Each structure stands twice: as structure tokens, then as C-alpha cells.
């Protein structure tokens, strides 16, 4: 049974991942040390709210998928909205796919998963 609080935690986790990505990428930088700390903080908190190791793994997958998908949509919105007409829109899609992949893989992905699991462990033990 999935509780509403767990769904909310995954949605917030995904939104936070999107925000951390676009905050950096739209300024021309890849996530740095501060961002890794924020990824860890959000992972820990979300994991603790979910408080279940198995659910946290699924929650992480869903949150990361949501986060990167939303970041990609925000990045290619000018192409989707027709502001960048063809054939330039294809370049925008390819470019942002590569940039977001480079930004997420591997450190933010690993940090989010590990801290999510640690958070779930803490949640299971203490909450």
C-alpha cells in the first residue's frame, strides 16, 4: 500500500531534482559541490519520509525520472513551442539530452540513490 505522504515525497524529490538541475544548467554550469550537498539533503529527507528501503528504490527511480524529464521539458520548451523552428529544434533536443545526461550521470544519480537509502534506513529505525 502506498501512502499519500510517500507519493508526495517522491513528487517533491523529483521537483527538487528538476530545480537543482535547471538552476545550474540554465546558468551554464554543471552541478558542483554545493549542489551535490543539496542532492544529498533532498535524498536523505525523501528517503526518511518514505521510510522503507524497497519503496525508496522505486521512489528514487520515479523521482529521478520525473526530475530529469521535467528538466528536459523546460529546456526544450522553446523548441516544443515553436520558438526554435525546424531544423534547429532537433539540435535543441539533442543538445539538451546530452547536457542533462552529463549533468545527472553519475554523481547526482549515485548521491541521490545512496542518500535516499540511508534516509530510508534512518526512517525505518527512528521514525
Amino acid at each position, binding site marked *: 500500500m502506498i501512502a499519500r*505522504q510517500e507519493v*508526495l*515525497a517522491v513528487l*517533491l*524529490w523529483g*521537483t*527538487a531534482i*528538476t*530545480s*537543482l538541475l*535547471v*538552476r545550474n544548467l*540554465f*546558468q*551554464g554550469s*554543471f552541478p558542483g559541490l554545493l549542489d551535490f550537498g*543539496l542532492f544529498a*539533503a*533532498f535524498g536523505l*529527507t*525523501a528517503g*526518511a*519520509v518514505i*521510510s522503507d528501503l524497497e519503496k525508496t528504490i522505486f521512489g528514487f527511480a520515479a523521482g529521478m525520472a520525473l526530475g530529469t524529464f521535467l528538466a528536459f521539458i*523546460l*529546456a526544450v*520548451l*522553446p523548441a516544443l513551442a515553436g*520558438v*526554435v*523552428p525546424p*531544423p*534547429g529544434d*532537433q*539540435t*535543441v533536443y*539533442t*543538445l539538451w539530452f*546530452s*547536457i542533462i545526461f552529463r549533468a545527472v550521470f553519475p554523481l547526482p544519480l549515485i548521491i541521490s540513490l545512496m542518500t535516499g537509502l540511508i534516509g530510508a534506513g534512518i*526512517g525505518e529505525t*527512528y*521514525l
Partner: protein
Amino acid sequence: MEKVDFAKLKLSEIRRLGLDGRSRMDLATLSRRTQLTLVLLVGTILISSVAALNTSNYQQFFPALEQLQVKVVSVHANANSQSLNGSVTFTIKNPTGYSGLIMQSLLTNFTVTFTNGTTIPQGTLDYTGVPKKLNPTSPVNITLLLVGSGTGPLQVTQLIKDGAIPQYAFSVNIILTTFLDQVLGITIPYQCPPTRSPITCEEVGIFLTSHGGVSGGGGGR
């Protein structure tokens, strides 16, 4: 469910229903899990607010590239056999609200054309000085000296002596530094028609150059 007619409530009833402000939600009474959810919510709202500002600015990035304006605001020459002995001033304006564009350099090819159809190439004019920020609605002026190259100035001088009227045509390439600089170089070419007076140049397209292993492409109008 109890219906409440607020107009008829007595003070004791207001207190009983907890509407007097004394029964505010006490965070300490919430479960730790709910408290953590609230922390996650507040954190997400804060980081999303910062991200929203960057996203809003980014959404104007492509319109800024498309609408970047280049104008020849003044051009004059007093040619002799050695040099055209003149100058041209370009104005570059970002008419959008996007902030983050920087003009790295401005490369120009120019020709002198005459009303009789003669066209004499005069080589290049480059601005590679201090990069200029193209802030929203604050135009940047770039003045370049018109010198000419090879026998160009001499030919122009002779044609002017013969009564021909010179006009100056420029092909301008603006090389930009943007937030995508790590992966993509952006050059915007413009064509400025032959002129002796202020004129707006036409954007030809947007050329992208791949940096750092990310594939790029070209776009145009």
C-alpha cells in the same frame, strides 16, 4: 458535519470551535514523518523559486538570439590612395529581456560599391577587444576604422574623383559567449546592404559550433 453560521456565533462557541487564533497548528504535535515532509516541501519550494527565475530568463534565450539587432548608425570615409580614412559605427541591441549574452567579437567583411555597379572588396574589420555584455535594451556601440586593403583605397579614390558615389556594404559575424559556451559556440551572421546612412542589418541565420563532444547543428531563418 457541523454547519457554522459565523454571524450568530457567541464568544464561547468561537472558542469551542477553535476559531479565535489560540488553536494554531502546533508543529511539535505533528509526527516526525510529517515534519520531515514539511521540511522537504519548504526546501523544494525554496530551490524551485530560484530555479524559476533562471528558467524564466532561459525561455527568452532563443528569442534573444533571433531578435538581436545590428545597425550601421554611421559610416563615413575620406579616401586617399593609402587608406579609406574613415570609420563605421555599429549598434548591437538585445531587444528582449534576456540577460546573459556577451559579444565576444565582431568580424566584418566589407566592400565599397558604386552606383555604376562597381564593387571593390576592402577586406576585413574585426573587433576582438573587451567582450561586451548585451544587456536587455542597452545597446552597445562598436566603432571600427575603415582602412581598406590592397589597391582598394586607390581604386575608390579614383572612382570618387570620376564622380562616382561610394556606398559601404558590410557582412557582419557576431561571435557570442553564452551559458552554453562549454558545449556550443554561437555565431550570428548579418548582411548590411550598401549604404551611406544609418541602416538596419538583416540576420542571416544562427550558426552553431560544437564544443566538448556535444553534437551541434545549424539553424537559419
